[in-house]
């Protein structure tokens, strides 16, 4: 019985993240529009876009290979599996032991790897520029993320996300300097990984400044829909990760009833909305930086991750 319950819970979480992801993207866009005194598209616009893209035919470049056609599904699958490992509104995830925080980072790395390969496949200069910059950003973002994972794992004594969240929610943690550093590091990495403003501009039409958009330039139709969906999922994943590790309030415990789960779900949606609002506020108040300043920006995350880890070696209570 418990097994079935857990399985259902896992399935529900996977579907919830999938269903909410485009909404979050729409919400951030809406907030940004309002902050710049525009009316903006409705929040459900990304859902409409996805449906429209799914229905359209794919226009494939003449020399695109099978890898180009398989990659969108690979990227989507890797991101979705990674998102399924993050406790969103309830801790008791059935498959959380399958892969831990380190594996989660690597799964996102897999998605990036295939996206960059797809960018190289058609053999256009924009695809190449996107891939090469994305891999440079990834080369700094991934270690920063891993060091942040080290910090969290050292505090919680585990690299499994449900155990980490259960520990964080237990109130034993208190306020720690190292966790603060890890939070800043994770936010910086999240901004870079999701192609948000100081690093990349999700709404740009100026080709030379694009990273993510340049890689997916050749995609159309259902392929583009899968990639857009994966990008939304990734944004939600980072928000959920920040939420569950650093702000674990209101998350339903392992053996919660239906009522507890409903409350957990409502709080999760609120957290996402708050995160989206903060992201929009941050993005409208800052300018995009030059590509070669990005390593400095990510270097801050790297150093904060390392400092957080080192502080924990000095004293376990910091």
């Amino acid at each position, binding site marked *: 019985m418990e097994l079935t319950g857990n399985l259902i819970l896992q399935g529900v979480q996977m579907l919830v993240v999938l269903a909410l992801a485009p909404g979050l993207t729409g919400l951030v866009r809406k907030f940004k529009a309002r902050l710049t005194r525009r009316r903006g598209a409705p929040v459900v616009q990304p859902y409409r876009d996805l449906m429209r893209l*799914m229905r359209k*035919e794919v*226009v*494939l*470049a*003449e020399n695109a*290979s099978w*890898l180009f056609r398989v990659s969108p*599904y690979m990227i*989507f*699958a890797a991101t*979705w*599996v990674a998102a*399924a490992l993050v406790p969103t509104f309830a801790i008791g995830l059935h498959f959380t032991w*399958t*892969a*831990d925080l*380190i*594996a989660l980072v*690597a*799964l996102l*790395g*897999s998605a*990036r*790897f295939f996206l960059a*390969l797809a*960018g*190289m*496949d058609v*053999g*256009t*200069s*924009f695809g*190449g*520029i996107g891939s*090469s*910059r994305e*891999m*440079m950003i990834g*080369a*700094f973002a*991934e*270690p920063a993320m*891993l*060091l942040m994972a080290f910090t969290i*794992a050292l505090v919680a*004594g*585990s*690299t*499994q996300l449900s155990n980490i969240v259960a520990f964080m929610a237990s109130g034993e943690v208190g306020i720690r300097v190292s966790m603060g550093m890890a939070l800043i590091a994770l936010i910086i990495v999240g901004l870079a990984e999701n192609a948000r403003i100081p690093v990349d501009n999700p709404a740009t039409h100026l080709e030379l400044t694009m990273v993510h958009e340049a890689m997916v*330039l*050749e995609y159309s*139709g*259902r392929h583009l829909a*899968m990639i857009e969906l994966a990008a939304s999922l990734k944004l939600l994943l980072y928000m959920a990760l920040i939420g569950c590790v650093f702000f674990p309030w209101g998350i339903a415990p392992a053996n919660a009833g239906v009522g507890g789960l409903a409350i957990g779900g409502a709080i999760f949606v609120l957290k996402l909305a708050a995160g989206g609002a903060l992201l929009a506020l941050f993005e409208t108040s800052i300018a995009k930086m030059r590509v*070669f300043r990005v390593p400095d920006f990510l270097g801050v995350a790297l150093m904060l991750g390392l400092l957080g*880890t*080192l502080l*924990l*070696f000095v004293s376990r209570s910091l």
Partner: protein
Amino acid sequence: MIEIAASTALCLLMLSFVATAMRGRLAVSAAVYLGCAVSCFALALVGVWTLATQAGASAMRVPVGLPWLGAHLRLDALSAAFLTLLGTGGAAASVYAIGYGRHEHEPHRVLPFYPGFLAAMTLVLLADDAFTFLLSWEVMSLLSWALVLTHHREEENRTAGYLYLVMAGFGTMVLLLAFGLMAGAGGAYDFAAMREVARSPALAALVLALMMVGAGSKAGLMPLHVWLPVAHPAAPSHVSALMSGVMTKVALYGFVRVAFDLLGPVAWWMSVPVVVVGAVTAVMGILFANVDGDGKRVLAYSTIENIGVIFTALGLALAFRANEMAGLAALALTAGLVHAMNHMMFKSLLFMVAGAVLNATGQRDLDGLGGLIHRMPKTAFLALVGVTAIAALPPLNGFVSEWMLFQAVLQSPNLPQPGLQFLVPAAGGLLALAAALAAACFVRFYGVVFLGRPRSDAAREAGETDRWSLTAMGALALLCVLAGIVPGVLIDLVAPAVELAVGAGLPLQAGNSWFTLIPVAEGRSSYSGFLVMVFIAVSGGAAAWLVHRLGSRRLRRAPAWDCGLPNADPVTQYGSGSFAQPIRRVMAPVLAARETVTMPPPGDRAAARLAARTEDLAWTRVYMPIIAFVGAAATRFNALQFLTIRRYLSLVFGSLILLLTGLTIWN
């Protein structure tokens, strides 16, 4: 068991002589490689059998070599683990060579040395006394040197061969010193006696440092790596696969054997240089791999990275062992050994891919390739498995060993020494950086070689490689996948070797449900490559099915969009240099990268040129001064060649007096 292993080595040696006698026939080439493949397979079976049955050590003494010593051979769990590695890598390379060897212009320059090289490596693993070990080591070096010089008419290869010879000679000399120190005044040259000798911590540290230099120079540790990226690519590709995939591991075996078995306890502070050098080697190796433009050299630099990763694991194991944390030492050492196995699989595979591409196009230069996924679809698919594995992406095997290593790093707060407590997370950060850079490096490698549009006529007209090569590559790719989704089998297999080295093994992984890996405790960390694979396959497959079912399945081919300005010239694509530009620029101080732009004067229609170059600081800062010094000293001493007989006699007399005086003072 040792008898079978020793006679297989003998068979391989015989094959060498057969190949010498019947030079140059095509059928002979295939027969020799087939013989090598069968022998290597036998060696792998012996290794697996010894490990799986947990058979004790078996030893034998062959009455050759020094009259009072003979040759001691012994097969224990540690040798067996590396024998498995050698057998698997050797068998794959030999099967590959049956097809690849047909393209060799001068087969008699490869054939006689190839089986002997395999035999020498086997004997290094089996040796149970210093004399046999060093002799086999030197034979291994010399035969691989001969193989490096296969295409000796190219100037570049001759330089590579010379550099390799000098470095190999230096390495063996250092090993000689290390074994001399270990044998002590009593002259205990067989390993059994060496284990008994009690050593002071300072002496043990000195031996370990010498081993790091001697074995490290063979394995490619920085800054002793300079020969590796020129020598490994110079050899024919199946030999490159063997040198990178297997020979570097034989060098590692030498280090592991001494550090964990012969030397006895080692002080904790000796783990510091191992960890530091390992982590720095990992990052520097992969940085150079990221900026190099020669396909095989990229792979060779990546070998240096992986050796760095393994050495970091060994250093961690030494640190844990010195603090009597056997379980954690086992975790680190298992990570190292499993990574050595994994590296053999994917690096051999990738070198074979490079060889197949080289045969099909005649190009090693990345910027002469492109679009090969259309011309060589099977090779391209197998190469994709290889690059995903080497970039440490789940669910393939490269990730498993990286993951275990990170788990070991996370255990470092348990270490009592503050120095190590600070060092280990920093090393963990460097390893994370190396892993991320490896992903960048192999996106570039795969993207430039297999994706995009062909950059030369040769790449445009390339054809699929032969069946033998595909079989060997396919087998290695399959191993990469299997070791990724059921890593427990590999971990349980090397457990006896780990037990022998650190006195404890990891918990048995065979009983875990869903092939989950649980290195320490269940609540702490676990990873199931099998389930990750299943989840990705199911969710990706389901998504594709649903989209095709409910959405559209129409597809139209059209010219590339490229923001409305597609350019037909393949040069407009990103190439190896342009892809590396962001990393080259960000890491410019470490890579000593410089870009020079030559603009023609106004009105001149000549093309502008952008030249980017990087240099290996180890080469310019360490080796160039040494070379300059040796050259200057040689010029000075040249004068001694033109003396009169009286002067020579007085020089001889003077040195005699000096030596005698020295001897008197010594006594």
